[in-house]
């Protein structure tokens, strides 16, 4: 949509936005009066919502509000909005969702019919709040930097890997200098690159065949809070302002595996130069040995240790199905085809249940950590349009990152 040319702009201005200013689109614009009427509607009663959509610049939306929103009492917790009825004299507002009566707090004491806060304006059906820092407008601490942990599949042919490297270079060039970057490469085994080790290339290796828990990953990376027996107990760091919004205990990990682009650009470039297709031999008639499951586990574990509760994303570039270890969806033997919908329907996919369980667990972990996993998949298995897909992969990665970075420039939102 960003490719729209100027000639389209006037047309857009003329035609009313079908999603409306709130980015909510209903199948019906009226509500049925009775159950009988609702059941007669063949088209279901539904809505699509795009909460993160960038508002149309032409819309008259207010600037972000520099104070926390006012909420209805528990358990409703709805926010003050234009549809609430207000008793200005008694300083009470009635929630339109649960009809509870709520008293305005003291800092709303100045409210009156002639002095109404922005969130009560009838036309302000969509507003944003700035909630960071101590709550003082304009004095919030700087937000933590964005984190990008790349997970690259090396079980691909040399040519494809070359394209991936190219895409990676463009991608890192797009990242802001303070963005933290990490690198995991995998094939038969998982290689977590310690970008902070400046003497030479240093990689932590994890076995591809073995399911590994988050705690085990932390142990092996020496990132456990309990401390590793190999190291004498470090003196307790003085409690003070959190550096860069992160706890001191994870700073070490960040400095080892996740580095600002400005600091690891060279290292990353060298690593990409030396990146090779997976060296482990593949028997004739077999698929490549790819341990996607463990790779994602390691990535999730690392982010869980270093960036809990902070915005971070895993970007996985996959070249085929997982054939080894947890999350395996198809065996290495090429004589076994990748499952189809029919197989799933008949419950005839031998690895499906286990894989689903594994990936569900991973998803839950990521959710609890507040992290995102994006997958760029280009499966060439039994497909023969390689070049087209590879080019498409580059293009999509490029556009996607551009979009994300642009979006990231705005303040984070709760909704």
């Amino acid at each position: 949509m960003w490719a729209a040319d100027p000639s389209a702009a006037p047309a857009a201005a003329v035609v009313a936005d079908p999603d409306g200013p709130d980015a909510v689109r209903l199948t019906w614009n009226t509500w049925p009066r009775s159950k009988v009427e609702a059941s007669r509607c063949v088209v279901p009663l539904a809505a699509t919502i795009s909460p993160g959509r960038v508002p149309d610049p032409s819309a008259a939306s207010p600037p972000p509000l520099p104070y926390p929103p006012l909420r209805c009492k528990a358990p409703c917790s709805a926010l003050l909005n234009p549809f609430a009825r207000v008793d200005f004299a008694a300083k009470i507002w009635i929630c339109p969702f649960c009809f509870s009566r709520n008293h305005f707090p003291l800092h709303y004491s100045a409210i009156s019919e002639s002095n109404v806060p922005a969130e009560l304006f009838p036309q302000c059906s969509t507003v944003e709040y700035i909630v960071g820092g101590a709550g003082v407008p304009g004095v919030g601490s700087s937000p933590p930097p964005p984190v990008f942990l790349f997970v690259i599949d090396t079980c691909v042919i040399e040519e494809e890997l070359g394209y991936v490297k190219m895409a990676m270079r463009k991608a890192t060039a797009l990242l802001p200098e303070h963005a933290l970057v990490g690198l995991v490469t995998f094939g038969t085994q998982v290689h977590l690159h310690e970008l902070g080790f400046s003497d030479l290339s240093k990689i932590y290796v994890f076995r591809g065949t073995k399911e590994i828990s988050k705690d085990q990953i932390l142990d092996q990376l020496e990132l456990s809070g309990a401390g590793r027996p190999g190291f004498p107990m470090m003196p307790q760091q003085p409690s003070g302002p959190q550096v860069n919004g992160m706890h001191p205990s994870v700073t070490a990990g960040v400095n080892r595996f996740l580095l600002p682009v400005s600091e690891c650009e060279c290292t990353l470039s060298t690593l990409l130069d030396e990146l090779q297709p997976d060296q482990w031999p593949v028997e004739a008639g077999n698929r490549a040995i790819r341990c996607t499951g463990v790779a994602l586990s390691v990535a999730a574990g690392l982010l869980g240790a270093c960036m809990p509760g902070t915005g971070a994303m895993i970007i996985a570039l996959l070249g085929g199905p997982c054939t080894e270890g947890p999350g395996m969806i198809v065996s290495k033997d090429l004589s076994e085809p990748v499952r189809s919908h029919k197989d799933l329907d008949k419950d005839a996919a031998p690895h499906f249940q286990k894989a689903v369980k594994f990936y569900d667990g991973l998803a839950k972990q990521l959710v609890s950590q507040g992290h995102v996993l994006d997958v760029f998949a280009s499966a060439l298995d039994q497909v023969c349009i390689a070049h087209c897909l590879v080019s498409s992969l580059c293009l999509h990665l490029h556009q996607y990152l551009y979009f994300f970075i642009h979006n990231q420039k705005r303040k984070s939102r709760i909704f």
Partner: protein
Amino acid sequence: MQPPMGNERPPPPGRTVSAFVPGAAVPPPPFAAGGPFAPPPWQGVPPPQSGAAAPHFGAVPPAAMGGFRGPPSSQGPFGAGTPPQRPFTSAPPPQSPFTSAPPSQGPFASAPPSQVPFASAQPSQSPFTSPPQSQGPFAAGPPPTGPFAATPAPFRSPLSSLAQPQSPTQGALPPPPTYARPLSQPLQAQGYYPGAPPSNPQFPMSRPAFQQPVQNMPPPPMGSAATFGNQAAYQSGGPPVGGTLQSLVEDFQSLSLSSVPGSLDPGVDVKGLPRPLDGDEEPVKLIESYPFNCHPRYFRLTTHAIPASQSLVSRWHLPLGAVVHPLAESPDGEEVPVINFGSAGVIRCRRCRTYINPYATFADAGRKWRCNLCTLLNDVPGEYFCALDASGRRYDTDQRPELSKGTVEFVAPTEYMVRPPMPPSYFFLIDVSVSAVRSGLLEIVAKTIKSCLDELPGFPRTQIGFLTFDSTLHFHNFKSSLSQPQMMVVADLDDVFLPLPDDLLVNLVDSRHVVESFLDSLPNMFHDNVNVESALGPALKAAFMVMSQIGGKLLVFQSTLPSLGIGRLRLRGDDVRAYGTDKEHTLRVPEDPFYKQMAAEFTKNQIAVDIFSFSEKYSDIASLGSLAKYTGGQVYHYPSFQAPTHEDKLKLELSRDLTRETAWESVMRIRCGKGVRFTTYHGHFMLRSTDLLALPAVDSDKAFAMQLSLEETLMTTQTVYFQVALLYTSSSGERRIRVHTAAAPVVTDLSEMYRQADTGAIVSLLGRIAVENSLSDKLDSVRQQLQLKLVRSLKEYRNLYVVQHRIGGRLIFPESLKFLPLYILAICKTLALRGGYADVSLDERCAAGFSMMILPVKRLLNFIYPSLYRVDEVLTMEPNKIDGWLKRLPLTFQCLDTGGLYLLDDGFTFLVWLGRMLPPELVNNILGVSLANFPDLSKILLRECDNELSRNFMKILRYLREKDPSYHQLSLVVRQGEQPRESYLLLSNLVEDQMAGTSSYVDWIQQIHRQTQS
């Protein structure tokens, strides 16, 4: 069998026949000569005459004249040895004079060794000044020369034929004149035979001979020894004339000890006690008797005389066995010849698989050859055929080293390979925990390895790889396309795996730049490491996975007691309660079976492990050392390693380890002739079957010991043959077989076994057995067993002579074993077996034990009885004469002058002892510091300073080090009275001095003496 045997013997009998012809004519004359000789000395019956004749013959050697006859006469008995076969059959009467010849061999054989106690020459000057007493034996000398003059006559021809090979052997100036005299003797004898007066010509002859010793240093000591012996004999048996004459024929050595228990007078001349101040003496004389035997540097029997019966074995209380040093370095000009049989294939006996050797004989006009070990007649391949000369010898014998030399090397054809020859492969396992970082170890190791890259054997096939470890394993990717290596960390210690299928062990030529980059950055890489743990067990598993495809040498550098993962060890070296109890030995054996199991895996995959241990705390060498023990490796121990102090030692020993000649994927077997076999082996190897030693790697510094036993109650052969065969892959990728062959006579006489005993080999075997016993018994028990063996041996020896001779209160022993009592005392006091808990740390004790299991004879003897030199008197001499003036001193405090500077060298350590009254300027010049400032001598580094004394001093150290490059001595300095360092470093090495709980040499001798008499 006899007829074929007779046919097979044509070659040697052929020569003998030519020699025998004059012998056949001569026998009557000597007997006739004996006739007229008999009446004057004895008026007794004829039987005493024959008995007396031999003693008289033997009496001559004790005299100074005997020294001159020793070398030539030693050939006589050999020549006489063969004829007895035929004379016995055809001429019974001549048997009588011939049987007297062998016994006389002993005294002659002892003549050269008697030159050894040169250090005691000065003390002997005192007895030398009593010529009147020494003239006594000379007065009796003339008569015994009668039979001697007659006896050599029949062998004049063989003597002259052997003269040529003998003179080159002598080489020195004095020996030729000595040899010339015997030639004149027969002439005189012949002159005497016509009827000239017997005493007149002999007496003048003996006088010039006596004066000769005055000009030559070597002879006097023997003379003094004889005088000493004769004095004792005279005192104890003087009155009876017959007794006096009998005592003159004693062919043993003896010490006069007080027979009164508790006497204040020790009755022993301390300075006269035998001491091996010239170090080990290889029995090269054997080569003269057995010219086809391999050189003793490769193979030494504990006694070069195999007992003919089980009953004889039971009376030999010392070990019966051999020490093998298969890859001993040969001097320039004596390189081992390499033979390629080509299409003929390796010539071996098809039954016992013995390789063809000089002792094999050819038959059927050269179409067949008889194996000397099992006597099977084998076919000679057409390509190997050669006609025989009249004596049955191949015409091409001299052109074929395998037929004329005791040591050869064969190029092995493909049937001797189970896989293509492996490239030399070096994998380094390096501890990078905090103690390794702080001691400076990483820097020295990295620098040393880098400096050796050009000298690693096997270019361009050499493989190399590294793995570092602390609480995790750090693999390193040396792929040749990388600009610098990649470190790949595996933290999963419970399930070790390889992070790469290749490039962990790489070709050195291809990945040279990556390896160098790694070595350059290794110290910095871990500069900030504060990890205190060691995951050595998992690291060993990883190393095994990397190396198992190829094999090679694994060098483990360990600084912290293994604490994580499999194979972790606990502190157990401080358990003092165990000493003296039945559980004492458990401290000296591996605690965890992991290490022995790992060693078995390593050996199976042709991986040898060398352990370099550096910790300042307990490292459990007992456990780690078993990796080296069962894989043919080695243990190097640097307690409390610090870079400044230990740098040179580590650097040179590591360089030596990496660059010395090494045999890869080897197996060694020692074959014996009929009737004997090797039953136990002692050293670093894995025993694969009853007689096959598996050696993933063996090098020029390793020796092995083994014990023999008789398979038959009675030996049926006259000679036993031994053949050592080492099948290996050379560093250049060639499969080879190194073969050492030796022969030894079978004897029925126990005294002959004593006469042929090799103290060096005996001590090496005893030392190894003692170390092994310490793994299953208390140290005290081990020492007692050693002493018991010595006592039984000497008691048995005493019994040989107690009937015929008046021994009285003397301790007697054969010349060949005169140093044995002292060496056994030294073994009891060496680091491995010394004292108890407080005397030696457990790690040091175990490390010393592992070293003793592999040291060649010469090095082992110097380790247990170190060399002590006075240095300050040599420093002012001309530099090019230093080696001539360095004299070893007895290991006793009485030899230390408080104004002197002394150097003690056991091969591993140089200890510089500063006498209290040493001039300060001398100390300043050598040490570079003044003692007035009370410096910490434990931190002194001996460096060359800018003055003559310092340069000469360092020259002495270099000279001593170059004598044996297999180890590098760590230099330590201690001052007189500086405790406790002086006690630990010096006094405990003074073997002859009494220390807490141990005997002095004098006490020891008296103790042994009392026990041999009981």
